[in-house]
């Protein structure tokens, strides 16, 4: 009631984004285009795997207190409406702020705006690099944005947990309902950027619980994630890179992912080529995973809020014991808008 009353008098801003994407596999059987939501293309044209619409409402409750909520509907999740963000932000001063609520888990460079297609030149962030089953957390974060002249910096310290019942990716891959909990997460992200260069470093550690078919298979298992991104925007050349490591030693799971992309700004067009890969050597349980994707595409900025894209992806799946979906070639076309 109090919140409703406060919002009635708040300065409210509405923003949003939409990505309408159609695609089909031209060679092979299936292509896992969106790992977190298990969005899969097959040989028929489909809009579901990559299409999403999001609406964000920001309410300034007073000069220092803000409420942010972002609802999203994804084709890969049968167009159900989910909450991507729902938190309150308290501005301690011009450099420090604290947030409490539900946020996207900032593991990877594109994690926090994964579905905002307008913000990057691909149809979707490079698939082999974005393969994790947990995308959100409920908890607290402390952000520090200091004054550094022409440089922009952001330090984000966060803690929280996420309980995912019938997790979309794990249930899809294992063929059985999997409940996954990431708890006691503590992470830090450091970003430093200028017009032509961006650096980002990320680290998170926590514990994992897992149930398969209602049976506990993992409990209090320690896990660590670390990653580095460096991006250059040098004259018209764009170089994007990302390197990540995931480690769950108790289960003998060590995963390396990376992405390297080159683009060229040609007026309103950006042709680009990208290679992404995931490698997990065979472990004591006999599990391995080894796949990579090479993509070429073109982004056309139709106007200041709309981008049109086309992309071709060639996926190679070399996993022996845990193949994902096999080799494939896929074509996709999309339109991204922000409003």
């Amino acid at each position, binding site marked *: 009631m109090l919140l409703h009353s406060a919002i009635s008098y708040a300065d409210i801003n509405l*923003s949003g984004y939409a990505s309408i994407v159609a695609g089909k596999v031209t060679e092979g059987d299936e292509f896992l285009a969106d790992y977190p939501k298990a969005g899969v293309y097959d040989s028929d044209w489909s809009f579901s795997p990559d299409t999403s619409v999001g609406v964000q409402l920001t309410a300034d409750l007073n000069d220092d207190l*803000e409420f942010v909520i972002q609802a999203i509907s994804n084709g890969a999740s049968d167009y159900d409406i989910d909450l991507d963000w729902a938190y309150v*932000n308290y*501005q301690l001063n*011009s450099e420090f702020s604290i947030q409490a609520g539900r946020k996207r888990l900032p593991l990877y460079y594109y994690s926090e*705006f994964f579905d905002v297609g307008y*913000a990057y030149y691909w149809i979707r962030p490079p698939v082999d690099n974005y393969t994790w089953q947990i995308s959100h957390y409920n908890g607290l974060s402390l952000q520090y944005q200091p004054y550094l002249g022409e440089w*922009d910096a952001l330090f984000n310290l966060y803690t929280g947990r996420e309980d995912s019942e019938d997790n979309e990716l794990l249930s899809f891959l294992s063929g059985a309902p999997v409940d996954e909990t990431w708890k006691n997460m503590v992470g830090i992200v450091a970003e430093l950027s200028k017009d032509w260069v961006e650096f980002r470093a990320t680290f998170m550690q926590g514990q994992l619980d897992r149930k398969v078919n209602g049976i506990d298979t993992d409990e209090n298992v320690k896990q660590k994630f670390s990653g580095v991104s460096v991006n250059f925007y040098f004259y018209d050349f764009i170089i994007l890179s990302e390197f990540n490591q995931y480690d769950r030693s108790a289960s003998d799971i060590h995963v390396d992912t990376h992405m390297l992309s080159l683009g060229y700004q040609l007026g309103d067009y950006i042709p680009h080529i990208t290679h992404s890969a995931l490698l997990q050597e065979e472990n004591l349980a006999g599990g391995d995973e080894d796949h990579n994707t090479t993509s070429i595409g073109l982004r056309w900025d139709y106007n200041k809020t709309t981008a049109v894209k086309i992309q071709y992806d060639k996926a190679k799946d070399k996993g022996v014991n845990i193949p994902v979906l096999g080799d494939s070639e896929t074509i996709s076309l999309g339109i991204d808008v922000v409003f």
Partner: protein
Amino acid sequence: MIILKTNIINRIFNYLATAVLAVMLSHVVVNMSYAEGTTGVLVAAESSPIQKTNILEIRRMYLGLPSSKSLVKNTVINTSDSTVYRMFLKNVMHMTDKGYRRKIVKRIFRQGGKKVKEIQDITELVNYLVENPHDVSFMPEDMAKSTKGIKVVQVLW
């Protein structure tokens, strides 16, 4: 055979020389347009209580980031003159238009906040500022001094 190789080398050299000249020329053209002697100023309504502030604060406000306690409520991008907008980006934001827009979109959908208002018509911009005394924008100094209803808060470049 040797003549053929020499021809190919000459041709490659010519292409490279032409490319280098083109790049140098484009730099001269870009620098000429930046060198246009316009002084840019921060403007607000004549009745506005807004006072001179640090340029870094102005840059943060135009990025949609919190600034030290300031009387400015909203910043407005003036896109009525592409040269003035480009000079604002170069001298205050230190980034290109594409880089600026990329930062704004990322900030809105990662950290909340509102879009930065953009006005393309100079008459509309002046009327907007007059009606919103806590908002600021930028324009050439001579235009600001000769326009009724607005005042120069400070020189930006």
